[in-house]
């Protein structure tokens, strides 16, 4: 582990949690919602328990961000595979449209032939 992190985790035990901010404030600090001159930052530098929680908040935020990125990627991949996308892509290409038309004509002819054989 990073020596500085280990130092902050070990050197300032505060088991009674004296003067500790609440969890929401620590999360706000991790998210950067608090101004940088907020005294909570000074407290984190002097309380191993709060430092641990603060680093936990940072990790949770990173994990959340990564999960969002993955979700977006999956969404994008799915979007490229959906049939509307395929249809619109095909519609943009004249050759493909004519190929589809030819396929439709063949299917229609096949059905028509089947009907004639049945009668």
């Amino acid at each position, binding site marked *: 582990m990073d020596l500085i992190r280990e130092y902050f985790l070990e050197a300032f035990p505060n088991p009674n949690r004296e003067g500790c901010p609440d969890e929401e404030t620590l999360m706000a600090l991790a998210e950067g919602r608090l101004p940088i001159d907020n005294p909570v930052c000074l407290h*984190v530098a002097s309380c191993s328990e709060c430092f641990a929680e603060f680093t936990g908040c940072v990790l949770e935020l990173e994990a959340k961000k990564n999960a969002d990125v993955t979700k977006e990627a999956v969404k994008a991949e799915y979007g490229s595979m959906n049939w509307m996308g395929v249809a619109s892509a095909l519609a943009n290409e004249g050759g493909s449209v004519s190929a589809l038309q030819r396929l439709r004509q063949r299917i229609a002819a096949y059905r028509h032939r089947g009907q004639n054989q049945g009668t």
Partner: protein
Amino acid sequence: MRRRELHLTDENHNAVSPAIAAAVEAAYRWAMAMFPDVDSALLANAAERLAIKMENNKEHLGSPRRYAYAAMHGKVRDWLRKKAANEIPIGLDYELDEHARMTNSFQDAVERSILFQQLQTKLSARDRHILILLTELNATPKDVATALGINYKAATKAIERVRERIAICLDIASESPKATSPGLSTTKGLTKKWI
């Protein structure tokens, strides 16, 4: 052995409450990230036992998340101390360790604690504040200036002084006979990064 999924149940094998599950999961992932050398299976076992205890005492828990972090941190710290104290290579292991320039983690632990004491005496609360800003919040000297209410030039000087103070501590640490061992390799990295 790597273990990433937790099976969080109470004594009757029912799922623990969502708040406790979330708190224990978060603390477990934090411990895995902060202490990558610790076996994740051990951490998972500790987390599962913690969940059982928390579920049994949930009426008395003020903040499950806070409790879970403190408990996991304490567990890992105790485990590391115990492990360091037990790990004394003897005989052939000792010779091999010496040959490979391996360290005895108990000695590392002692050296680290001495280094932390030196840092404690050398770094003021203001210096530690600067360290947190730079290392954890990715602050620039301009941000440091804003946080401390000083001008940019004074902030850069303050950062420089923190670096010098850490360097002094590391120099003192490197004067110890074990300085060439990989036990202080992390301090070498730190020196590279900071000085």
